[in-house]
């Protein structure tokens, strides 16, 4: 799977593209874990290019949220389309994440995060 990355100040955006399924989620997990291990503490995951997400993809989002739980860090999801939103809601995941409409708002929220 293609995974875009964009640095903005103290924040990093990771943007997976395509189907976030049981096969491709491992690739996203490797990138997310590598960046967290390297010390990233403000992370946005931009889902705008994600066609759909299955539980394997939710597992990666949950992993990132646990490692970036405040005050250790901050995670914001953005670019969530109808299919991704529906799966997040069915799984009861919406309440677990900070969500913004698009990347600019996600970055603004991350930059305003203390400290």
């Amino acid at each position, binding site marked *: 799977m293609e995974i875009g990355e964009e640095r903005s100040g103290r924040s990093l955006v990771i943007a997976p593209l395509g*189907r976030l*399924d*049981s*096969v491709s989620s491992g690739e996203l997990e490797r990138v997310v874990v590598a960046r967290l291990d390297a010390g990233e503490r403000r992370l946005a995951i931009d889902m705008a290019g994600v*066609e*759909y*997400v*299955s*539980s*394997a993809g*939710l*597992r990666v989002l*949950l992993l990132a*949220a*646990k490692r970036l*739980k405040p005050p250790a860090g901050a995670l914001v999801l953005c670019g969530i389309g*109808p*299919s991704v*939103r*529906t*799966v997040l*809601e*069915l*799984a*009861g995941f919406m309440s*677990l994440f900070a969500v913004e409409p698009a990347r600019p708002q996600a970055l603004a929220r991350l930059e305003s995060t203390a400290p």
Partner: protein
Amino acid sequence: MSAGETRRLSVPATDEGIRAALDALEGLWTAQGVSRAVTWPVAVSLDEVLANVVHHALAGRGDSARVELELQLEPGDPPRCELRVEDDGPAFDPLAAIAPDTAAGLDERPIGGLGIELVKRLMDEVHYERKDGRNRLCLVRRLVAMEPEGA
């Protein structure tokens, strides 16, 4: 209106097999001109079911283990999709698993069992039977748009 279409395929119980099955499903939509806006719940469900078979029922069996699939699309308003998934692994009814607590907080949230719970919520019908030493799962969904609760 075009006639219904059925695709039968046998894939190895590996990630490559899951990929091949999802690609075949996409091929079915494309051939019948069905919008992705209504097909994604079926694709997510097939991924969940196959991941379950590959990583649990047939885990450790190597490349020789295979999963038999029948993907069926009946035209109509709305179209109806039916998937059959068969394997010869140990008897395992995924529908009998205990549903996860989807209201738990971040720290208490388990991931196991979530996939099958999603399948139950995304598909109209899900049936399991053990027959002739094989696990048979049948999934049905009418292809109508599925909107987020807040929409």
